[in-house]
C-alpha cells in the first residue's frame, strides 16, 4: 500500500458519517417540501403572471413557501428583480 492509498482508505473509512450527514440534509429538505400545501404551484404561477405585467422575470425568480410554526403559518414570498 502506497503512502497515498493510506490516506485514501482513511477517507473511505469515514464514508458512513458523510452518508449520514448528506441524508439528514436531503431528508429534512424533502420533508419540508412534502408539508407544503397543494395550492403553492398554482399560486406561484399566478403571481408570476401578475408581476410579468410590470417587470420581466423568469420562473425561478418567484419563490413561494409556507413556514408553519406552532401558533401560525407564514406565507413567505421572495421576488428577485432583474438588474438594470
Amino acid at each position, binding site marked *: 500500500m502506497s503512502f497515498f492509498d493510506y490516506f485514501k482508505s482513511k477517507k*473511505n*473509512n*469515514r*464514508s*458512513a*458519517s458523510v*452518508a*449520514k450527514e*448528506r*441524508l*439528514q440534509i*436531503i*431528508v429534512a429538505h*424533502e*420533508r419540508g417540501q*412534502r408539508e407544503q400545501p397543494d395550492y403553492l404551484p398554482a399560486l406561484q404561477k399566478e403571481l408570476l403572471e401578475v408581476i410579468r405585467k410590470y417587470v420581466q422575470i423568469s420562473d425561478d425568480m418567484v419563490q413561494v413557501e409556507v413556514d408553519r410554526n406552532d401558533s401560525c403559518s407564514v406565507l413567505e414570498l421572495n421576488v428577485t428583480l432583474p438588474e438594470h
Partner: protein
Amino acid sequence: MARIIVVTSGKGGVGKTTTSASISTGLAKRGHKTVVIDFDVGLRNLDLIMNCERRVVYDFVNVIQGEATLNQALIRDKRVDTLYILPASQTREKEALTKDGVEKVINELSERFDYIVCDSPAGIEHGALMALYYADEAIVVTNPEVSSVRDSDRILGILQSKSRRAEMGQDPVKEHLLLSRYNPDRVQRGEMLSVADVEEILAIPLLGVIPESQVVLNASNQGLPVILEEDSDAGQAYEDAVARLLGEEREHRFMSSQKKGFFSRMFKGG
C-alpha cells in the same frame, strides 16, 4: 377482520419479497391464518421464493376481473398449512390493479384470514400505491445505504398522506423499520450506516435487523423462505421480527460483528 401489512421500500432489490415470504411464513407457523399477496404485476417473484411457481393457475388480476374465484387463485403452502399465496399476474399491465378491484379482494380475504401480507413492487407509482393503500401496518424494508434510506423516507411520506387511513382521517398506518442486508463488520469500519444512524434519520420504531447473509441466496435458490432455515442468522432475525410484530419483547441480535472462532478463521480465511 384481518390485519393488513404492507412490505414496502420505494427502492428495488432491498429485500421486500424475501421479507414478505419470511414474515408471512412466520405468522402462519404460529397458527395465524395468513395470506401473502404479490402486488408486483408483470414481475412476479414471490411464487419462486415460496416454491409454488408451478402451481400457479390463476392470479390476482384474474380474480379482480372476475375470470377466476379467489378459491381458484389461492395456493396453499405445502409446508405451513395456515399459509396461502395469491400470485401476481405475469402478463397484465400494472393498471389492472384498480382501487375498487383490490378492495373487493382484500375485503373477501379479510373475512377468512387473520393476516394479509402485501408484497409491494418497487417505486412510488401505481403498483406500490395499490399495495400500501389498504394497509394497517407497514414494514419499511431499508438497506443501510443512502438511496435506500431516502426512498424509505419518501414512502413514509406517502403512507402518511395517500393511504386509506390517511385519506379517511383514521389512526395512521403503524410504521416499522426493518433494516436488511446489514453488515456489522463494515459498520464497525465506518463504511456503512449503523442501525442508530438509520433510526435517527427515519425516526420510526425498529422491528428488526436482518444481517447480510449467504443463507438468503441459498434459501431462495431452493424456494425456501429463509425463516425456515431455523439455525441461520437471517432466519432467526426474521423469527425475532415476527415475534416483535406480534407484540413480544425480543432483544435485538446480529447487530455487532460475530467473533470468529479459531477454526472458522482458519478455513474461511477471515
